[in-house]
């Protein structure tokens, strides 16, 4: 099958609503969005605390969070595999090769990205925002929420960045998901498998979906950053 036939077949799969292909897309979106929703609030709170609360070891923690942004996803997968395998400390949970394991892995991957970007956003925020909220009667939590609202465009950008990182990662999903058809096969693991079998059409179709998703995330990110920039320029 030449490149033209492969592309034609890929489009046919996409537009015929092929259930296998769209099932894989659904697994990818579901797992990544769930990981983002579960890790998001914790990571944003951690990022805010790191920028705002002074405690011993904070500097080391900031360095670790920043370093873990580029931690290889396959190593995260390996460590999680060891924890979740039958002999591992969390083996009793029987999560290995399941979507919850993939969600857990992606949460670990996205956490430092969100925390580091939130930290940077809050550090860039005007400190008077928190003080003004506090002087108007806001408690610590409410003043923190107000500050985060003031830098909401940067925090939203962090969420899009995080989504972009996990929706396209393959190492961890392959290790703890196991690439099981109809269950844990997502876009990146399916592309790798189909390509290794010489079945390029589905891989190309899934690649197109991944590119569209990545472009969509980046367009949303640019829109959010543009809006924030316009507001700051006032």
């Amino acid at each position, binding site marked *: 099958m030449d490149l033209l036939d492969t592309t034609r077949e890929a489009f046919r799969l996409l537009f015929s609503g092929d259930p296998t292909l769209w099932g894989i897309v659904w697994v990818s979106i579901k797992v990544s969005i769930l990981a983002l929703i579960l890790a998001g609030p914790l990571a944003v709170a951690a990022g805010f605390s790191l920028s705002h609360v002074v405690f011993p070891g904070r500097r080391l923690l900031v360095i670790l969070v920043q370093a873990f942004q580029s931690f290889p996803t396959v190593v995260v997968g390996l460590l999680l595999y060891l924890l979740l395998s039958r002999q591992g400390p969390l083996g009793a949970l029987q999560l290995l090769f399941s979507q919850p394991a993939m969600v857990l892995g992606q949460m670990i991957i996205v956490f430092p990205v969100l925390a580091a970007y939130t930290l940077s956003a809050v550090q860039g925020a005007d400190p*008077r925002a928190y*003080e003004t909220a506090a*002087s*108007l*009667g*806001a408690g610590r939590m409410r003043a923190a929420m*107000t500050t985060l*609202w003031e830098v909401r465009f940067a925090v939203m950008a962090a969420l899009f960045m995080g989504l972009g990182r996990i929706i396209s990662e393959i190492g961890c999903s392959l290790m703890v998901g196991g690439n099981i058809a109809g269950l844990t096969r997502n876009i990146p693991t399916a592309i790798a498998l189909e390509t290794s079998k010489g079945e390029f059409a589905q891989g190309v179709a899934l690649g197109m979906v991944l590119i569209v998703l990545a472009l969509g995330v980046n367009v949303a990110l640019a829109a959010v950053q543009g809006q924030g920039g316009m507001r700051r320029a006032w």
Partner: protein
Amino acid sequence: MVAVMEIGGLAKSWGGRPVLRIPQLVLEAGSSYVLSGDNGAGKSTLLRILAGLEPAKVERFAFEGKLLQLGRLPAEVRRLIGFVHQHPYMFNRSTLANVEYGLRLQGVPRHERSRLAHDALTWAGMAEFAGAPAQRLSGGEQQRVALARAKVLSPHVYLLDEPTANLDADGRRRVLELIAQLAAADKVVLIACHDLEMINLPGVVRLHLENGSLEGEGPALRALAGG
């Protein structure tokens, strides 16, 4: 006169260097205080400490007779201490929403909140800007909105940090008029400033910060004077 705010044994250091040492300061209801001092004398720091925004070593702090920890003021007390920055921060929302912010925290119903905020903006001469994005306002307009935002919560103490600094003549005149109205009410108004017109206003208690110590007149520093 009733003491609204009493602070005793205040000490503040930056990197081990003492910047403020105030044995006693008493702010009384219905009194206005003007706090002068050179740049870097610690005027803003003192106001921020009194607002509970800056940590400091304080032996005794009482608000309306109640002993409290200054660094851990409950929200209901913080609301009674209206602090306005030299360059007030406007939340990234409308002018009206900025003034409503504190009322929203108190759980004031929406209709009542809007009415009170409109009244406060009218008092500040800013009603026509209610729907405008607050961050777009000029410095003088933001200062007036900040005064309205503080006033709407009916604080018992106003702490105003250089409220007329960097304002043009018209903005300065309007802000001075508003401050005069606040001072005429039975409130405590403490203003840190360099503004000679304000320092020389009749009826105000003049305090001066120099080398970290407070000098002044009247009963505000009674312990200092041995009273």
